[in-house]
């Protein structure tokens, strides 16, 4: 029975749940809690998939054989198949994660090196008020945009803005943008994104991993926006987003920026109750299946294999 429940749970967590959560609007009011909920969905989905892979052969064995036959060769085969299925999922995910981590770090190191060489030295000093631990780099560029590149562990990340950004934004707006980027770096938002990117690369078709990745990316932007709002005010953060959106030529990427601007202007900020409820849902997603399905199953399955 556990096998059926776990398979069902894995399918629901991989399909309809991410689809609904990606379309939900209330998440914008509580980005931090919503990101935790997304992470819980991902963890629960992977655990359920691994669990169902482990439980399925044993369930088959139980259906196909008499209790006294569940020893010897059939049992060894069942355990072997279970271990193989489960490790396929785990190894695939871990393999993708490691490869992604290595490639990403190589790419970032090269990007940091190039940005350091290309930066306009004289303007780096002009923009003050940087928290220690980050380095601002100003690049030549006619399009205003800003981003950040995490540093190696223990080293400074880079906040990169184009010259056009300095020309376009007023000082308050620029400070808000820098606070936004520093929030990304300080809270290691890159690791959150990396996790969901790995999940998508490991299981691109089966699950709604792309929706998950993109929804989390947008929530991380909103979370960083909130950091800029806290330190420099709603007007400055919304103004900066407005300037970015109106200068860019492309439409689809700008939709997101405009959505973030309007969210700030509408003063969307979630209540405590919504945040607490979301956190509770996240905890429940991981704990409830474990307590109700996995532990009873272990109680039945382990004695069969001879473990007590």
């Amino acid at each position: 029975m556990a096998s059926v429940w776990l398979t069902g749970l894995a399918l629901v967590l991989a399909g309809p749940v991410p689809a609904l959560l990606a379309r939900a609007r209330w998440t914008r009011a509580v980005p931090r809690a919503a990101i935790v909920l997304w992470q819980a969905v991902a963890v629960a989905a992977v655990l359920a998939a691994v669990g169902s892979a482990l439980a399925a052969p044993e369930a088959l064995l139980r259906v196909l054989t008499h209790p006294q036959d569940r020893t010897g060769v059939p049992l060894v085969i069942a355990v072997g198949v279970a271990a193989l299925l489960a490790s396929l999922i785990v190894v695939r995910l871990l393999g993708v994660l490691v490869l992604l981590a290595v490639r990403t770090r190589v790419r970032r190191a090269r990007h940091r090196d190039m940005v350091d060489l290309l930066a306009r030295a004289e303007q780096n000093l002009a923009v003050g008020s940087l928290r220690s631990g980050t380095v601002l780099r100003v690049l030549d560029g006619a399009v205003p945009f800003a981003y950040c590149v995490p540093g190696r562990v223990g080293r400074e990340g880079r906040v990169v803005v184009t010259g056009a950004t300095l020309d376009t934004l007023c000082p308050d707006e620029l400070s808000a943008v820098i606070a936004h980027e520093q929030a990304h770096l300080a809270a290691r938002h890159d690791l959150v994104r990396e996790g969901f990117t790995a999940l998508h690369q490991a299981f691109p078709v089966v699950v709604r991993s792309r929706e998950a990745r993109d929804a989390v990316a947008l929530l991380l932007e909103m979370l960083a926006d909130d950091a800029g709002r806290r330190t420099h005010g709603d007007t400055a953060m919304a103004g900066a987003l407005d300037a970015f959106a109106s200068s860019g030529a492309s439409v689809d990427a700008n939709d997101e920026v405009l959505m973030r601007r309007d969210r700030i202007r509408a003063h969307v900020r979630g209540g405590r109750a919504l945040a607490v409820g979301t956190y509770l849902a996240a905890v429940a997603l991981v704990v409830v299946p474990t307590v109700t399905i996995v532990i009873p199953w272990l109680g039945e399955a382990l004695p069969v294999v001879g473990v007590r």
Partner: protein
Amino acid sequence: MSLGTLARVALGELERAVMAQLWSADAPLTVRDVHDRLERELAYTTVMTVLGRLAKKGLVRQERDGKAYRYAAAASREQMAAEVMIDALGDVGEDRTAALVAFVDRVGPAEAEALRRALDTPAGTPPPTPPRSPES
């Protein structure tokens, strides 16, 4: 500012100065050439160290010329700037790496594509190091 940070800042500034010399030169330079062009009080070995670091990072090409090594920028300043832009702007869609990190403003794939076409390089590969093309 700690001593270590100070040393790193100075080193970064030195790398920029050395790179500027390589970018402005018509032909590959020896360590001595770079040292003389820098016109400041620097030990020869310091310049050699900086060039070695840049070569290790893949930003400078090292070629043997008789007894001496000659150094050239692996890409022109314009090409490197374009590579940075493509790397940053192309940070959307299906990539083999995770994001550099999120953007306040993201320029869409169309722009990144246009940039790539302007550079005439296949997607995803860094621009090669062809003869200088000021228009890119």
